[in-house]
């Protein structure tokens, strides 16, 4: 069996990895220069508990189950995951009935550990919370992670189990004959296939169209964020949510894995054509700030190191589109809007184990290795291990990114594992992700990339395509 997964986001990556558990040839196609650069890169990085979901829906089931799977998955793939817990905060007595409703909804969804906390408790645990808060719904299973790290680790683990990765290779058509998938054509060539899994994120509707399907229709919704550096200190300890309205979970204040804080997202519906409109706007950033300040009025914006926007794929009925289609061998995991990051592990497991394995009659592989070691931050290693690494290769002692203490050794290893540009290195190692945002290390990383890839420094890009950094040599 030859199976292609289209889309190297969190969903496609986990599906591809899941497929390598079975006897088959699995190919993963990603149009961008690296894994996880679409919806996966720019979201709240929250593993939700599941209390926001309507009981009885597929989304609620996959969300609660996905949250549970994170524990083992993050351990297996060596990806950071912290159950920081979350408060949904009522800022007035008017919001209390809604909070109570949410509590009961969470219970029906099987969300573990939910508790209603009074004003005194929440303000003791979150002293920077708005003093007008009247109550908080505590959801201890809510976690934070690094979505792009999980996608990269899933692909690398998949590759250890035989996955063939094709990055910077866009699928241009899908061949269907007699109601059955025959293969695909990309910018690089043609592939004969038995099955195709459409996990193309925002672009899954275009991929479905290539197979002749009119569903789903995906509409981008833009969410803008601000990132505060870890210098902000222990300002909050859990994720803070407002009491939600019907449309979205609202603007959140969320701790990040490396100790910073994320504010956002806004929710702006865009046209179907605007799937690359991930620019920030004056209005959006302002809205995110105002929303966050309702929860934490003392927020100090001098810690902001970055603003960014992400697009999430919305379907008209807000449902995930997961499963087989009218075309034999064409499967979909599309319309994966919030809580898609949370649900991704259970989506992959459900689609592969409960649908694809049966339809394609796949048999399990004896040799599957489920654990993977990602590129560790050398300073997180026990000192003895660090000493051994530096002794074996002195580049592990040469710190390039002074903010996050990333060494040349880690950068070189990231390049050898597939990073092809500055963003590739940044998302794989955190070099350039700190308070100076690359101001003091970009030149060093660029020169390492040029050296390792054997290209000229002025050919190095920010993120592939025409995003070259330099304009040519100075006069000699």
């Amino acid at each position, binding site marked *: 069996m030859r199976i292609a997964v289209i889309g190297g986001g969190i969903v496609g990556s986990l599906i591809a990895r899941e497929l390598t558990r079975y006897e088959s040839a699995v190919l993963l196609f990603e149009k961008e220069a690296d894994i996880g650069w679409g919806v996966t890169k720019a979201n709240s990085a929250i593993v939700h508990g599941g209390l926001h979901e309507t009981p009885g829906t597929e989304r609620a089931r996959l969300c609660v189950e996905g949250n549970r799977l994170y524990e083992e998955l993050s351990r297996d793939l060596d990806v950071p995951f912290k159950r920081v817990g979350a408060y949904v905060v009522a800022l007035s007595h008017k919001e209390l009935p809604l909070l109570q409703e949410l509590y009961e909804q969470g219970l029906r969804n099987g969300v573990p550990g939910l508790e209603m906390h009074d004003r005194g408790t929440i303000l003791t645990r979150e002293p920077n919370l708005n003093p007008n808060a009247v109550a908080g719904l505590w959801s201890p299973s809510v976690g934070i992670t690094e979505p792009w790290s999980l996608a990269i680790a899933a692909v690398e683990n998949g590759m250890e189990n035989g996955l063939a990765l094709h990055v910077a290779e866009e699928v241009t058509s899908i061949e269907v004959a007699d109601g059955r998938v025959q293969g695909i054509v990309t910018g690089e060539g043609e592939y004969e296939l038995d099955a195709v899994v459409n996990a193309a994120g925002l672009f899954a509707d275009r991929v479905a169209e290539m197979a002749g399907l009119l569903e789903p229709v995906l509409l981008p919704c833009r969410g803008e964020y601000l990132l505060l550096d870890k210098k902000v200190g222990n300002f909050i300890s859990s994720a803070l949510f407002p009491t939600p309205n019907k449309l979205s979970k609202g603007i959140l204040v969320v701790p990040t894995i490396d100790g910073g804080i994320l504010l956002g997202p806004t929710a702006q519906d865009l046209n179907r054509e605007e799937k690359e409109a991930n620019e920030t706007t004056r209005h959006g950033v302002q809205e995110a700030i105002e929303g966050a300040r309702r929860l934490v009025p003392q927020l100090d914006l001098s810690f902001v190191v970055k603003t960014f926007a992400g697009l999430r794929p919305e379907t008209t009925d807000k449902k995930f589109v997961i499963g087989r289609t009218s075309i034999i061998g064409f499967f979909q995991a599309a319309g994966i809007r919030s809580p898609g990051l949370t649900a991704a592990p259970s989506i992959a497991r459900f689609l592969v184990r409960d649908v694809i394995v049966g339809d394609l009659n796949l048999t399990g592989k004896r040799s599957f290795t489920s654990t993977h070691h990602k590129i560790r931050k050398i300073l997180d290693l026990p000192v003895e291990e660090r000493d051994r690494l530096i002794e074996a290769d002195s580049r592990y002692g040469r710190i390039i990114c002074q903010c996050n203490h990333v060494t040349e050794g880690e950068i070189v290893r990231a390049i050898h594992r597939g990073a092809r540009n500055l963003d590739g290195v940044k998302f794989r190692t955190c070099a350039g992700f700190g*308070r100076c945002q690359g101001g003091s290390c970009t030149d060093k990383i660029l020169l390492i990339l040029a050296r390792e890839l054997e290209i000229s420094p002025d050919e190095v890009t920010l993120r592939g395509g025409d995003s070259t950094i330099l304009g040519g040599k100075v006069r000699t």
Partner: protein
Amino acid sequence: MREKVVDVLVVGGGAAGMAAAASAGAQTLLLECDAEVGGVLNQCIHTGFGLHRYREELTGPEFGHRLLGELERSRAEVISGCTVIDIEHHGPVVHAVGPEGRLRIRPKALVWATGAGERPFGSLMTPGPRPAGIFTAGLAQRFVNIHGFLPGKRALILGSGDIGLIMARRLHLEGMEVAAVVEVQPFPGGLTRNVVQCLEDYNIPLLLCHGITEVHGRDRLTGVTIAQVDKSRLPIAGSERHFAVDTLILSIGLIPENELILPFTPIDPVNRGPRVNSLMQTEVPWLFAAGNNVVIFDLVDTVAAVGEMAGASAALYARGELPQERLTRLVRGENVLHLVPSSLVAESPTVLYLRVSRPINAAMVHVGDVISRKQSVVRPSEMIEIHIPQDALRELVKKDEVHVKVTEG
């Protein structure tokens, strides 16, 4: 892992650190995270350095070379390529990592001389996508002057700090087109001589009271929209102008680098550096500080001078010879933004470094009721140095606190 016990450890091998280590002398270790000492001097190939310290006009590398000579003569040990990653302040014990492995140092005194980092683009919260082609000025300067590569073809420069002005000239001389220098304040951020020599001499326009409202371009920058700003720095509708540029250079400020000492060192929130007395001793007795991590100075000559003071004081402290004097607090009064030191020590040579928050044409600088000095022009871009004579110092230290202010003269 290697262990070292030293009298004085200097962290940072830029101008402040080199001068500190040179004046602290033997039994001193200097750690530099880069492959070579010199810090930002290495990339500043223009002239204008050393007029005070060496009474000559030198380039950055020449100035660094002089300091290196002083450092070598002092017999202080230098380890480069070695980054401090943690400081245990009970002890103190300093942990560093380099290509030779881990290094643990137990110093009697420490001079913190890590300089400053450039404020990143992201902190501006500018609307638009995030294309390639946006550089902080120092990064662009390293690409051009050290690595020999241009950042692009046509540039707009945001911020008229000295680095921005110098980069405008540098890029122009290297054949890039510099469309304009944009400054949000109503006055230039850098030294007047740099405005004249870097912009006016080459007809590069300086647009005051303007800010960036949007960047454009998906892969590589294709343009920047700027607008005039009002008094609260908000863009004025209708005043937008578009520049088709592939490069945006940012000279929007430096941020003192104090990450590792922040957890245990009292910081002056305006200077954004540790509170120091006139001996450059912080409020943690064994910790001394010098250079742009204390406050952003204008001149490397000044940085070297405070480095020397910090190094000499640290060496005295290590030998148990630093006097434990009662301190006189210096308090910011009218029109004083940056102020170093935070307190005075009796009988030590004392220089006050201060920066005003608004320009005045005929000003009077007051230190308590003891010193009143006429100053023809004061502006935020030019730091004021007040050398305090010993007899004045004796009067000043009789008080618990002394107010410093700059008034209309």
